[in-house]
């Protein structure tokens, strides 16, 4: 009777002492480096990252020291040193856009976290149709930005929009003009942003809640702690790393919002929704000032990066671990 070798290829005994001798395999052992094949496998990704991340990144840094309108070709690039950066700091539109960005992200991010956490706490309970509800709250996050823009534009139409009609039914007067008002456009944008991002925060919080240390809840219950005390002493500290993660990712994502602004408000009315990322777009693709736009982009990047670092540092050592 023939002996059938059922061992998986490449899963041999590393000590080489057990069992009968196996016929020697041709080629390299699994542990031997196979650099060319490895590189070929990752080549598409490496090329993609080089082409779409590193080269543009380096280009932006280099362009920020130049004056260039794209149409004049590479020969038209003129080195201007730090002029663009000096101009950025003197530009009132840049400062105004910075304030709008801070207001936008500064309000939208915490509110998104609050809504996401509230939803997660509710959906972490044993509710009927819980799976369906979880999916329903996550859907806005994956819906196409164009659909979101068009739908909310209709809903928030100051005259015929459903939102104002419902408010009117409840007797509200002086209804908001939403995107047709320079006072209301930013709050409306924040509202839509929270709606579209809360599902993501909800999902991340849900998974974090399921990892919360059960024995601590048990101990707290035995000690007579109520729900609020348990939340304050156990849930919230255990969610702190998740909160910081969400804070950072949402802050970076929301402060870079472009599609929704381009679709719904085009930066207006007036300049009430011109954030830094939209100002960058205007400067480069409407005014063709690519050098200046690169400087705005670089300053924005440094700003966001600094805020991100501060957030990470602020939470160090405060998390609750098992």
């Amino acid at each position: 009777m023939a002996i059938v070798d059922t061992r998986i290829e490449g899963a041999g005994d590393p000590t080489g002492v057990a069992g009968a001798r196996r016929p020697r395999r041709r080629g390299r052992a699994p542990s031997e480096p196979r650099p060319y094949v490895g590189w070929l496998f990752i080549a598409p990704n490496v090329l993609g990252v080089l082409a779409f991340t590193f080269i543009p990144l380096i280009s932006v840094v280099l362009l920020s020291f130049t004056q260039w309108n794209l149409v004049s070709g590479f020969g038209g690039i003129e080195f201007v040193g730090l002029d663009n950066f000096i101009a950025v700091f003197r530009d009132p539109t840049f400062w105004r856009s910075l304030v709008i960005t801070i207001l936008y992200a500064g309000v939208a991010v915490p509110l998104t976290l609050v809504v996401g956490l509230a939803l997660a706490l509710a959906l972490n309970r044993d509710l009927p149709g819980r799976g369906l509800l979880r999916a329903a709250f996550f859907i806005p996050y994956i819906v196409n930005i164009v659909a979101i823009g068009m739908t909310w534009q209709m809903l928030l139409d100051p005259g015929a929009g459903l939102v104002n009609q419902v408010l009117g039914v409840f007797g509200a007067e002086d209804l908001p003009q939403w995107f047709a008002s320079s006072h209301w456009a930013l709050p409306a944008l924040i509202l839509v942003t929270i709606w579209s991002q809360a599902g993501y925060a909800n999902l991340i919080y849900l998974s974090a809640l399921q990892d919360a240390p059960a024995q601590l809840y048990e101990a707290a219950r035995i000690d007579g702690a109520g729900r609020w005390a348990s939340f304050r002493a156990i849930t919230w500290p255990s969610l702190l790393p998740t909160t910081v993660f969400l804070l950072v990712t949402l802050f970076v994502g929301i402060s870079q919002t472009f599609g929704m602004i381009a679709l719904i408000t085009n930066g207006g009315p007036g300049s009430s929704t011109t954030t830094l990322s939209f100002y960058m777009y205007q400067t480069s693709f409407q005014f063709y000032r690519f050098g200046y736009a690169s400087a705005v982009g670089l300053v924005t990047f440094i700003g966001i990066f600094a805020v991100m670092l501060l957030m990470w540092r602020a939470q160090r050592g405060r998390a609750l671990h098992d």
Partner: protein
Amino acid sequence: MPPASGRSLSRRQFAGALGAATGAAAFAGCSSTSAKDMDTLQVWGGIPAESGPQAVIDKFHEQYPGTHVTYTRYVNDDRGNLKVNTALQGGVDIDVFFTYGVPNLTMRVDSGLAADVGDLVRATPELEIFLDTEDPKALIDGDEITALATTRIPQMVLFNESLRERAGIELPTQWTFEEYLEVIRALADDGKYGTYVLPDLARIELGPNYRFTPEGDSNFSHPAFLRHFDLAAELIREGVLYPWSQALARQLEAYQQNIFIAEDFGLWTTAPYSLRFLTDQEEYPHDFKVACAPVPTLDGHDWNTGEYGAFIQINSKSPKQELAWEFCKFWLLESAQDVVKAGYISLLGEVDDEQLLAGILGEDAEQFFDVDSFRRTLFEDEPRMHLDTELTAYTEITQKYEQQRDVCWLLERSPAAAIEAVDKNAQALIDRFEED
């Protein structure tokens, strides 16, 4: 199942093949440069080929046997123009291109993308009108000419005849701005508005280069600009002009035809290219006739708010300069009859007014239009049109103007404060651009 050869591909061989294929594809993609076809003229323009350009090209083929012209249509918006600019500077095979709007025109000319055709124009007597520097129809800089306007784009006032008759208004043939105001106030009734926006009062009064003083400074402190903002805000408040909040919320700037056809307002200041909506009963069904009147005059000032446009240019890098010029000349002199389908009134070309009118108003003209009123307004009145040639920070100033216009017409900011902000911003931009 092993392949017929009896050998199967190992993982390593498969990976190698995949990598090689990817690398080859990437290399091929990077290294592919389309060789320029010397027998084919590449033309890029904004009108759909079937609305006239293809017919012009077919005639060109007949007159110049052995030549071939390929027409590429681009959409005349920010994205479309970016595509053209990138293609031009990137060396894509473009020989002749059309430019719409003065900001794009200057950028392309200043960047050396457009060939100088000054000598060729001077050598062609039929193109003499392009040498006129008093009423320019070309971009002229000394002896250099780098762009030639192909069309007149006059503004005109369209009336919804049902609403006009209901309001008991006589169709004007010449009118002052005061008379115009009386008419839109009379039309604003019973849930309807008088019009969408006022014609640009400052343009009627000041004509070309109206944003700049003769010294090149901002001219927005001129009372005409404030009068325009002020009057428009007042009429919006009165319910005579279409509410700007609705215009912004529903992004109607590019879709004014929809609300004119829906009879939301009775009078519309627009240009001939809008007439195509009024002849399309399938997409834009309506049962009212439309009549035409000239743009009103203002205290003796009578500049039409329309302009010369659709500039034809030759790529300075094109190796087919002679053929490109023959095509430009042909387009300027022979395209008139064909491009009327797109609502374009050519500057030149041996086409009589009746043919142009028939082209612009379509086959069932009598059904949709008061044809006589169009004939009178478009061809007998000879409106004075403009071409801006002072273009410092043109796009940026336009944006600042529109931002303040929006907040003013939303009735959030006083007209005086809005115009003051435009003036201040425009002067700052002019100063900065002059520093650069």
